[in-house]
Structure formats: structure tokens, C-alpha cells
């Protein structure tokens, strides 16, 4: 999953998408190196989810190209892209318990039972879910459900992980725990990550690189300082709030 120095691992060029008469975005360009996490911020309805769905191969762009690791992937299936999409709601298969949810991707690949058991137990331990292995998804808390969904995504060793505000419905503590866990585990697995959020603080915690989607246009920041310096990013407003709020 490495790319040459000249070409980024993920390269999106002139991407355009319309929903009926409304242009979601036009001529969107985006680059990301292997193993990096790009945090994209934007208000609700600005097209963040549409962008992720197109990158995942769950939706198609009207124009433009997507190159993943040097391969034109614009019409590839999600599986062929090695992309896994994590929904805002922690969607678990309701007919499977926690263990089988985590094992789902490996079962699709017909992995032998012994090897599968070892892999799944390893993931359950890493996510502190071993005690819940045979629980029904409906009996889990939001944080636990999100951990299962996250573990299930990592089990298939995705080259590209697409996270659609996955922690927005969690309480502050669970959210902080998941941010740490996500950061640690995606680094450990060497995933390239695109993380969309409308929370500036989360973008700063999660992202190695940052971008902003607004009014159908995508702005890539050169570095963290540029992201923080842009008034439109919301970082300065967040900083001012805390400066005023704290005694």
C-alpha cells in the first residue's frame, strides 16, 4: 500500500456529483499518502457523506477520477478498492452476536475456523470486548456497539478506512476513548483513513492532514497550522470559546 513519492496513495481529481438539480460538489481534488489520516470538516449537508460513499464505491461520481495506489478505482467495487465504510450509526448485523459480527468479513473470505478464532479473539481482546463476545448487539451500549463495528471493519485489514462521523452519537468519555482507540489501531494496522466530522476538536485529534468541505468546494490545508489559522475552519472560534468559558 505504498505509493511513489510523485503520486499520492489516494488521488481524487475533478470529482463532481449532483443530486438532481443540486450540485453536491464539483471539481473536487484530494490527495492522501498511505497510512495518513485525513480529517474533513464541514457543516451538515455539505456533502461529506456523499464524498465518503463515492470513495467507498457505494455511490458513483458523475465525473472525475479516483486513483488508489496507482490504480484507477472509480468504478471498482468496495472490495476491490480495499475500502471499508463505517457509518455514523454503529450498524451491527442484528442476527449475529458480537463474535460473529467481528468475524463477518473473515467468514466471507472462507477463513479456516481455527485461524478465524485466533484472529477474532485477538481483536476482541484489543477492543476489550472478550466478555461480550456472545452478547446480542441489541443489548450493547452505543460505545460498545461502535467498538464492535470498528473491530469488524479492521478485521478485514482495509487499505482505506472511511469513517463517517462515527463517534458523534457517543457520550464525551466514550467518544474520547474511541478517538484514542481508533488512532492507535489504525496506525497499528497501517490503514489510510478519511475521517469526516463537523467537530473541530475531533478533527484536530484524529487528523494528520485536514480539509474543509463547504458550498460544493473542498479546501485542503497545507498543514495543521494553516487549518488552525483559517477562521472558516472553526478552530479559532473554538479556542475563543474555551478562553472565555474557563475561569
Amino acid at each position, binding site marked *: 500500500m505504498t505509493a511513489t513519492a510523485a503520486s499520492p496513495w489516494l488521488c481524487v481529481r475533478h470529482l463532481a456529483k449532483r443530486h438532481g438539480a443540486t450540485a453536491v460538489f464539483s471539481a473536487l481534488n484530494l490527495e492522501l499518502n498511505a497510512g495518513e489520516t485525513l480529517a474533513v470538516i464541514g457543516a451538515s449537508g455539505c456533502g461529506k457523506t456523499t464524498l465518503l460513499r463515492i470513495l467507498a*464505491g*457505494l455511490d458513483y461520481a458523475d465525473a472525475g477520477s479516483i486513483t488508489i495506489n496507482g490504480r484507477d478505482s472509480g468504478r471498482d467495487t*468496495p472490495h476491490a478498492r480495499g475500502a*471499508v*465504510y463505517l457509518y455514523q450509526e454503529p450498524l451491527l448485523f442484528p442476527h449475529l452476536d458480537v463474535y460473529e459480527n467481528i468475524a*463477518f*468479513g473473515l467468514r*466471507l473470505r472462507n477463513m479456516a475456523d481455527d485461524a478465524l478464532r485466533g484472529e477474532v479473539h485477538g481483536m476482541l481482546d484489543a477492543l476489550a470486548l472478550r466478555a461480550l463476545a456472545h452478547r446480542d448487539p441489541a443489548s450493547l451500549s452505543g460505545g460498545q456497539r461502535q467498538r464492535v463495528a470498528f473491530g*469488524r471493519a479492521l478485521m478485514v485489514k482495509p487499505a482505506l478506512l472511511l469513517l463517517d462521523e462515527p463517534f458523534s452519537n457517543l457520550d464525551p468519555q466514550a467518544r474520547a476513548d474511541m478517538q484514542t482507540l481508533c488512532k492507535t489501531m489504525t496506525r497499528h494496522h497501517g490503514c489510510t483513513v478519511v475521517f469526516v466530522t463537523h467537530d473541530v476538536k475531533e478533527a484536530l485529534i484524529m487528523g494528520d492532514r485536514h480539509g474543509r468541505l463547504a458550498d460544493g468546494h473542498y479546501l485542503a490545508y497545507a498543514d495543521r497550522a494553516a487549518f488552525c489559522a483559517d477562521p472558516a475552519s472553526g478552530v479559532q472560534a473554538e479556542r475563543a470559546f474555551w478562553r472565555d468559558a474557563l475561569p
Partner: protein
Amino acid sequence: MGERLRAILGHGLGLLVMLPFAALLVLSLARSWPYPQLWPAVWQFDQWLLFGAQWSTLAPAALRSLSLALLVGLLATGAGFLTSRVLARRSRGWLTLALLPFAVPPVVYAVSLGQAYAALGLNGHYGGVLLAQLPFAYAYAVLLCRGYWTRTRLELGELALSLGARPAQLWWRVHGPLARGLLGVCLFQTALMSWFDFALVRFIGAGHVETLSLRVFDTLNAGDLRQAAAAALIMLAPPCLALLINPRLLWPALTRAVAP
């Protein structure tokens, strides 16, 4: 409404539904049951024994009905489920097409298609009857299965694809298990549509495809009320047996299966 009252009302409603069938059973076992007697004075098994004597001709008709019902049920359920998936993200206008077969009475449909069936050589054939029954069962299956395709279920499908599922695996590992209850109900109901069908079998079968429903209606036409009651109970036997094995086929499974 309290739990207790709800249970009483539920059981009361169930009894009301069962009452006509209980009356049929009593009628089929009565020598005579003149109004206003609440209960027959003399009982007999003659009606049932008569069916026993006719078993050699009745059994093939029953088997033909059963095979037709199973084939119609399986084909309509499979095709209906797949079609409802295709329609899930399209405008509701397409779905209204599924209502069309119910706007035309089966007799009118059978008569109007009779010429076409004759030209195709399908009149009087088992396959012709099967083809004639399918549109109704298929449309019903589409309408029944559309409730399954909630946003969450569609997203679960996408998620499975994202995790590497091939289309066959998606059906086998996700939608099949999730829709099992609904598919069972659909199969049962569409099979019943064929099992109870009379008009299409009469017109398209043209007397060459004899099913149990034809035999029962012949008995009804003969004018013996007690014999007709016994015949009607024979028609009801398979669905009653299926409901006895799995009562959820009729209602609770349906409500649970289509719940978001």
C-alpha cells in the same frame, strides 16, 4: 389498555375467527342440524367416509394443488423479494404497478387472457395454470416484501458489500437470515393464493387440470350442504396444519419482520 384486557380481546377475536370453521366441522358431522337447534341431535361420519371412498381420484388432485401452490409460492416469493429490493430506492409510482393485478377480477383476467393462452397452447396445461396464477402471487409478494427494505436494512447490505461480500453472500449471509420470518409468511400466503384458486384453474385449466379446489366446488354445486362442509374442511386442512406447526406464519412474524 392493560395487558389482561388485551389478552382477553385477542383470544376473543381468535375465537370469533375460528367460530365459522367450528360450525363447518359440526355441520360435516351432523346427520341434520335444523335451525334453531344449537346442537345436532344425531351425528354421522358419512360425509367423511365418502371422501375416503373417493381417495384414489382425490389424491392426485390434492397433490396437483399442493405442487402448484408450492411452485407458485416459491417463485412468487423469490421474485417478489428481489423485485422489492430493486424498487426500494425508486419512486413509489413503480410500486403502484404491483396493485394492478388486484384491480382486475381473476375471472375477467382469465377470460381476457384465454385467447392468448389458447394461441400459445397453454390452455388445459399445468404450466398454463401456473403462469396464470403467478402475476397475482408475485404482485402480492412485492407488496408484502417492500416493508423489509428499510434504510437500515439497505445500509446493512452496503456494509456487507464494503466488508467484501459478493452478491450471493449478501443474500445468503445478510438478507436471507434477516428476512427469514417475512419470507416464510410470504411463501405461506402466496401458496395459499394458489391453493384456494378456483377461477383461473377452471378457465385456463379448461377441465384438464383438476385440482382440489375444483373438486370442492363441484361438491358445493351438488347442493349437499354437509358434504360441502366436509369438502371445505379438506381445503382448509393444509393451511390449518401449517398454522398449527407455526402460528407465527399468520400475524406476529409478519409484524416483526417488517418492523424497522
